[in-house]
Structures are given as structure tokens and as C-alpha cells.
């Protein structure tokens, strides 16, 4: 216990900054990934065979590729294709792409829970397909996927640890404790603090997600 206190005295501010950076990366990739995932899901509903084919491929690729392999490709290989992306945006881009693939998947499941009868009724009222999607299908689909999306948000937060593998100007939580453990003997206490921070953040998200789900869920 004493070593944890000493550790916090030495590195307290660094831990605070690291936590903020972790949250920042998480939020930015989640928002971008969610928006992109929604666009993909809607686009896959359109009767455009070539588009659906390509998007299915996109989802399969980014669900199956290891995030580290994707990050390394973006950071180390893309510049050879004359696409130079800075480190932090690279991390966010990686997590966004992976997040969008999983969002598209979950959202698709959510759409499947909407009863076909509702769509038929809306169509028979003369609503155009896009209006049906935006006012009938999507709202219900979104309300039914709160729980998997909460899990995705937590998973994304845990995945920000891979930012430790590229030379970011700032250090997020995992990079910070790896450095502390390398440089000093305070290894175990540093890991305990980081683990606690991840855990508490995750629990907060899970609690908020559960509360949101209870409010918006559709009882059928």
C-alpha cells in the first residue's frame, strides 16, 4: 500500500494525463466508428448489389484483422504509399475502422429485431424506403443494441492500450506503466493503479450503459 502511495506521489499527474488521453482516444474512435458503422449498415440495406458486396468485404476484413497489425500497417507501411498519417490519428483511425465493422455487425442484428410487418405497413402508407429506414427501422434498431454497443465501448477503451506500440507524443495508461516498470522497481504498484483505473472506467461505462438500456429498451 505504501508503495502505491509513493508511486502516486511521484507520478500522479502523469497518471492523470494518461487517463485523459485514454478516454480521449476512446471517445473519438467510438463516435467516429459508430457514425461510420451506421452509414455502412444503412448502405447495406440499399438494393445495390456491388455496394453490398464491397461493404460485406469491408466488415469481414476489419472484424478479422488484428488491431496491432492494422495499426502497424497504417503507421509503417502507408507512408510508402505516400499516405503519411500522424501517430495519434493513426491510432484513432485503427480503432475507428475496427469499431465501425463491429458496429455494423451489431446494428444489423438490431435491425433484424424490427418486425417486417411494421415496414410493410409503413410502405403501404406511401412512405419512401429511406424515410422508413430513418424513422421506423433505425430508431428501434438503435434502442435494441445499447447493450452490445456498451460492450464495444469498453472493448475500445481497453484497445487503446495498443497506442503504446507507436511513439505517441503523450503516453496513455499502458504505455505509462510499461515505462515506469522498465525504469524503476515500482512495477507491480504501477500496474495495480492502471488496472484499477481501467476497471473503474469500465464499470462506469457499464453502469451508464445499463441505465440507458433500461430507459430506451423496447418491450415486446
Amino acid at each position, binding site marked *: 500500500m505504501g508503495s502505491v502511495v509513493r508511486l502516486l506521489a511521484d507520478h500522479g499527474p502523469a497518471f492523470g494525463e494518461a487517463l485523459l488521453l485514454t478516454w480521449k482516444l476512446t471517445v473519438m474512435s467510438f463516435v467516429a466508428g459508430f457514425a461510420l458503422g451506421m452509414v455502412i449498415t444503412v448502405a447495406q*440495406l*440499399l*438494393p*445495390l*448489389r*456491388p*455496394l453490398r458486396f*464491397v461493404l460485406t468485404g469491408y466488415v*469481414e*476484413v476489419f*472484424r*478479422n*484483422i*488484428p*488491431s*496491432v*497489425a*492494422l495499426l*502497424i*500497417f497504417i503507421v*509503417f*507501411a502507408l507512408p*510508402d*504509399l*505516400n499516405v503519411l498519417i500522424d501517430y495519434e490519428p493513426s491510432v484513432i483511425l485503427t480503432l475507428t475502422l475496427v469499431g465501425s465493422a463491429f458496429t455494423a455487425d451489431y446494428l444489423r442484428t438490431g*435491425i*433484424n429485431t*424490427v*418486425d*417486417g*410487418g411494421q*415496414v410493410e405497413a409503413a*410502405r403501404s402508407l406511401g412512405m419512401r*424506403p429511406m424515410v*422508413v*429506414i430513418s424513422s421506423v*427501422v433505425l430508431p428501434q434498431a438503435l434502442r435494441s443494441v445499447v447493450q452490445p454497443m456498451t460492450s464495444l465501448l*469498453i472493448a475500445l477503451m*481497453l*484497445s*487503446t*492500450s*495498443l497506442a*503504446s506500440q507507436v511513439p505517441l507524443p503523450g503516453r496513455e*495508461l*499502458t504505455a505509462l*506503466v*510499461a515505462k515506469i*516498470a*522498465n525504469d524503476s*522497481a515500482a*512495477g*507491480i504498484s504501477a*500496474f495495480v493503479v*492502471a*488496472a484499477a483505473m*481501467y*476497471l473503474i472506467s*469500465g*464499470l462506469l461505462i457499464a453502469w451508464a450503459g445499463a441505465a440507458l438500456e433500461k430507459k430506451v429498451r423496447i418491450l415486446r
Partner: protein
Amino acid sequence: MSRALEHILFSDLSPKAQAITRAVSVSVAAALFILALGIVYRFHAAGQLDVRLWGLFAWKTTWVFLANGLLGTLASAAAAAVIALVLGLVLLVGRLSSQRGVRWPAIAVIEFLRGVPTLLLIYVCFLALPSVGIKLSAYWMLTLPVGLSTAAVVAEMYRAGVLAVPRGQTDAARSLGLNRAQVFAHVVFPQALRYIVPALVAQLVIVVKDTTFGYVVTYGELMQNAKVLIANYRSLVPVYLVVAVLYCSVNYAISRASRRLGRPMH
């Protein structure tokens, strides 16, 4: 069975709408084609289509080398999966126990392993454990944390499966005189497994993905062998591209296998 939503949404379109749809379809196809050409052109303009960079893939030794890396990946993934399945079961039994003294620690362990990044656990095994005298080999420093992390997820999956087994089964078994342990082992758990097998196999994909952190603990697997090829041949883009395709293919094969197994929960 109701038809897929897309069919309901876009059936019975007026002839004019159908014509518009066809036209848009063709233009989208054309746009995608141009995009593909653009990407190929970008490769060419950056000199990445040079035979010099791709020639190494014509050699058998390159593929043998990559295959060895992949074996390293799979060796770790397989052991981690076994650990996860077995430990997950232990955690599940603890989680479902009627005694608080067993249930609460089980919940704590599960929540801890689920709430902490796998990479952090890997660093713990590599940097922190040795300082208290626990020195593992590189293989175990990768496999153990991945296995533990996955065990917690698997435990929750088992629980979802168990909760999905209809209560009637439990009641009937109890009324036949089986005790709780027998009910669990012979009636509930086998059925629970069948519900969740696709999800379990899908978790295997995540295990394979986690093994890419092998280089952090100096365990040799596919990513590491890729770096050797790059150091030898300066062929960054082609090597990383091929390695990415290899990973995607392996994981895709696993996902496809999972979709054929098991039955839906209701």
C-alpha cells in the same frame, strides 16, 4: 419466416424507381471500379508494384518462413483457448455457486479479467511478475494472459448459455431425483454448450488476434517473421499486406466454421 427487411423495403418499386435503382447500381459499380483502379495506381506511383519488392513471394523459402510464424501464432492461440475453456468453466461453477464465499470471489476475478486490457496483463507477466520471482518462458508469458483474459469472457458466455436452458429441464431433472451437481453436469451444461458454441468459436478469433502481441514478450510469431523479411528485402508494403491477408484469412476461416455450428437460443 418473414422476409429480410431489405426485400420488404425495396419490393414493389415503380418502374421509374426500378430504373433509377438500376442506374444508381451501375454508377456505384463504376465508382467502385474507379476507386480500385485509383488504389492500384497509387501503388504504382509510389513504386510499390516494383517486381523488386514482390519477387520474394515467388520463393518457397519465404512462404515456409511465414508458415513457421503462423504456426507460432496458432500454437499460442490453441493453448490459450484450452486454458480459457477450462478456467472459464471453473469460474462459471464458482459464479453460479449458492455460497456467497465462492460466488463473490468468482465475480471479482471475472470482472477484473474482463475489465483490464490483455496487453496490460501481458506486460504484468513480462515486467512485474519476475520481480516477485515468477519467471515464465516467452511462450507462457503470451499464452497465459491471453488465456486468462479470454477465460473471463468464456465464463460469461457459459453463463448466458446456462440461463438460456429452459427451466423446465432443471425442474424435471430434479423431480427425477438428480442432485444439483448431476443436474448441472448431465442436463444443463451440455445443452448450454450447444447454444453458445458459435460464440465460443468466434472468441477463438479474438484469441488469435491477441497473439499478435507476441513480440512484446519476445515470442516469435508471424509479425516477428514479417519484420525479418522487411529487414532483408526492404519490402514494407507487400510483406505487411500479405501478413494482414494471412491473419484475416485464418480468422475468417474460424468465423465461418463457427457459423455452421450450434443452434439458436430460442
